[in-house]
């Protein structure tokens, strides 16, 4: 199964002629498409070759070559390796590329992000505004010639600090003593903030009927709101209690993961990935090391592969019990189900703490293995959890919640997403599978040693909030099954290939590593130019892209349902905003 490749059988360069060519740079793959024909190419890929799922879209700033590149990873929703194609345009403002929102609606937020951070203008995008930073922010920060206020050097380790070990506070050397910089000629007193007029103008207003007039009001939920799972904001137009239109507003936790990641060395990025989806740090580690291992061409030893699977599946359980607990919170069962969930989570966190040294920010995986072996007695503890404790507790959850009348009445038929919509909006993880698309990367494009385990892909067929809950329940069970097999099969041996290194050598090239994280497809797109630091480091964040479908799911529902629909997507803001 794993050996089977799904590469297109037709040579795309022959099919499309002059305007599609193979990417022949060393270490790169896929096709380079002329910008003018991009939409036609993507439409043909989708309709003729079955690449109906846009996995990832991002830009790369090739400053030395004077080029901007937009990289697309598309997949078949039936499974298989992704296909890569790129568009290259000159790096002169305005940098414009045709928008693919008409072909893949899931491109909407990703294109907005590329506009925000890289200044790539997507022609034909319905709502091209900044998404992570605010309107009026100075410059496009991920461009290689854009420097932040605390800029010291292009790459770490900074010479001022290493190897002498000097410590200084960068703000002490700056005029304002803090992390701010202003363009020349800027006058704060005459400056008018752009504010959010564009956001509110974009919220759709339905023409009012003549004889019966109701007022539509705009309500902001968040960024400080108990139901938004962090600093997330929804601007909602309401007709009475019915949601007419909804726009997510994010970026309140934009921590510049990618900019910092491009200054860091490869190894330094691992603890940063912990803080993406902070509920499931080990999955994030896993995705990142897979991407860099692809570039380096190393493979971890058997024991490390098993440890990775055990840890990633424990993480999935942690995430899903927490998600279910918080989802019940959103429904109004305030905190009691969460207490049950957190009880189980704490048991698993104890395992993480014993194995990795930290409850939440595990920083455990390394290129070619894991940081250290399991401590003595740990396998027995995990075995006890997987065979005795967790299955019983999942059943307990099931008894209390699954057929609870209030849960069913609130959740069934709410926030429906059809399979076609789910694929078109590039949703992933439980959201996609609850809509009847059995797309799980552990099966669809197996990585690590997942092809060895016997487990089922959890699927729902109604695409509603209730099915997303059921899919998560089932995934906990399947994760327990995988752990049960893994703890029986795990061999003895080393846990890392070769010696642990601080500075790894990564050959030039690009790689896209992806795992089925608890929230969905978590991808890391890494471009190396042979230096100790990645040239481009992009995270395909499932929480972020799943939100593309939020407006579609909420329209026509009541505002109270918008809260549980958001809860059913299960976002974590660290990953949404990065």
């Amino acid at each position: 199964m794993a050996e089977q490749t799904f590469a297109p059988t037709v040579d795309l360069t022959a099919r499309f002629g002059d305007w599609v060519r193979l990417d022949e740079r060393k270490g790169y793959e896929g096709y380079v498409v002329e910008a003018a024909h991009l939409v036609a190419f993507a439409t043909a890929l989708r309709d003729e070759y079955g690449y109906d799922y846009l996995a990832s879209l991002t830009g790369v700033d090739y400053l030395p070559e004077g080029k901007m590149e937009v990289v697309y990873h598309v997949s078949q929703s039936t499974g298989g390796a992704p296909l890569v194609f790129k568009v290259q345009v000159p790096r002169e403002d305005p940098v414009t590329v045709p928008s693919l929102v008409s072909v893949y609606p899931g491109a909407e937020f990703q294109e907005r992000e590329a506009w925000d951070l890289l200044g790539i203008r997507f022609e034909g995008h319905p709502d091209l505004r900044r998404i992570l930073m605010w309107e009026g922010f100075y410059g496009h920060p991920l461009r290689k010639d854009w420097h932040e206020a605390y800029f010291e050097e292009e790459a770490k380790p900074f010479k001022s600090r290493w190897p002498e070990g000097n410590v200084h506070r960068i703000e002490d050397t700056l005029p304002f003593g803090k992390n701010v910089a202003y363009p020349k000629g800027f006058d704060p007193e005459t400056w008018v903030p752009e504010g959010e007029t564009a956001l509110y103008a974009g919220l759709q207003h339905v023409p009012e009927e003549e004889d019966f007039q109701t007022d539509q009001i705009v309500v902001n939920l968040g960024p400080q709101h108990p139901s938004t799972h962090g600093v997330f904001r929804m601007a909602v137009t309401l007709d009475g209690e019915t949601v007419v239109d909804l726009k997510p507003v994010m970026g309140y936790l934009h921590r510049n993961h990618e900019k910092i990641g491009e200054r860091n060395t490869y190894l330094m990025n691992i603890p940063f990935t912990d803080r993406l989806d902070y509920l499931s740090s080990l999955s994030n580690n896993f995705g990142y090391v897979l991407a860099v291992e692809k570039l380096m061409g190393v493979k971890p030893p058997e024991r490390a592969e098993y440890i990775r699977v055990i840890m990633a599946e424990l993480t999935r359980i942690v995430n899903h019990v927490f998600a279910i607990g918080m989802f019940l919170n959103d429904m109004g069962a305030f905190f009691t189900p969460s207490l049950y969930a957190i009880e189980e989570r704490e048991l698993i966190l104890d395992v993480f703490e014993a194995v990795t040294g930290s409850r939440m920010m595990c920083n455990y995986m390394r290129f070619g293995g894991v940081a250290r072996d399991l401590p003595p007695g740990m396998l027995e503890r995990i075995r006890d959890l997987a065979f005795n404790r967790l299955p019983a507790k999942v059943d307990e959850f099931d008894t209390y919640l699954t057929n609870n009348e209030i849960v069913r009445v609130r959740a069934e038929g709410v926030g429906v997403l059809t399979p076609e919509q789910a694929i078109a909006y590039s949703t992933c993880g439980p959201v996609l599978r609850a809509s009847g698309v059995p797309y799980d990367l552990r099966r669809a494009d197996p990585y690590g040693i997942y092809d060895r385990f016997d487990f089922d892909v959890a699927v729902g067929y109604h695409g509603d909030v209730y099915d997303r809950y059921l899919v998560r329940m089932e995934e906990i069970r399947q994760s327990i099954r995988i752990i049960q097999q893994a703890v029986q099969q795990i061999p003895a041996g080393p846990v890392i290939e070769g010696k642990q290194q601080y500075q790894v050598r990564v050959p030039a090239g690009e790689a896209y590593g992806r795992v089925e994280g608890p929230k969905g497809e978590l991808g890391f797109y890494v471009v190396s130019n042979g230096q100790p630091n990645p040239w481009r480091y992009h995270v395909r964040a499932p929480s972020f892209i799943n939100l593309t479908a939020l407006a579609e799911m909420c329209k026509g529902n009541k505002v109270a349902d918008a809260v549980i629909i958001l809860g059913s997507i299960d976002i974590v803001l660290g990953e949404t905003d990065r």
Partner: protein
Amino acid sequence: MSESLNSPGYDIPEELQGTVAITTLDRIYNWGRRNSIWPMMFGLACCAIEMICTAASRYDLARFGMEVMRPSPRQSDLMIVSGTVTKKMLPQIVRLYNQMAEPRYVLAMGACASGGGPFKEGYNVVSGVDKYLPVDVYVPGCPPTPQALLHGLMKLQEKIDQQSIKEVPWYKKGPSEPIPVPVLGPDIMDPREYEKIKQFTLQPVIPVQVED
């Protein structure tokens, strides 16, 4: 409880010790406040998850009378800044702080809220919430464990014990000044610093950066 409440030197019969206490006004006032600090239900990032765990059954914030998390700033006494403060979020945080009724306290939870943390160099990250708000307790860690947060809250209780009605700012005459809400310009702007900003942006001379 009465033991910590009683002023020294008064001999109260044993059978009355649970009922009668002779103490100062400051003491009983602080004793009441320290044991019913209501934190604001306000999570920013990773630290918020550990804050939730602290409130859950294993660590049980209720032992300190702090389990009543209020989503509204009007009803809360303590703002636990639990996570990275970004520039985009900062105006809201300051506004929430201004909306809290006095006496109010701020606890900077974790490395990010205390000083920027691992993300300090980021272009959208504020190097510690104390650049804008007065912070009472800093809790180190990334994220701090629930034990560390509990320790920080106990430190806050100690701080409350030290306060006197005569000296605390919120019983001074007149209303207290709100903190000016930062404005999102090309970068975050503190309204108190407009003059300083203009010196750098409108002067023809480029300020020399000190290198060390």
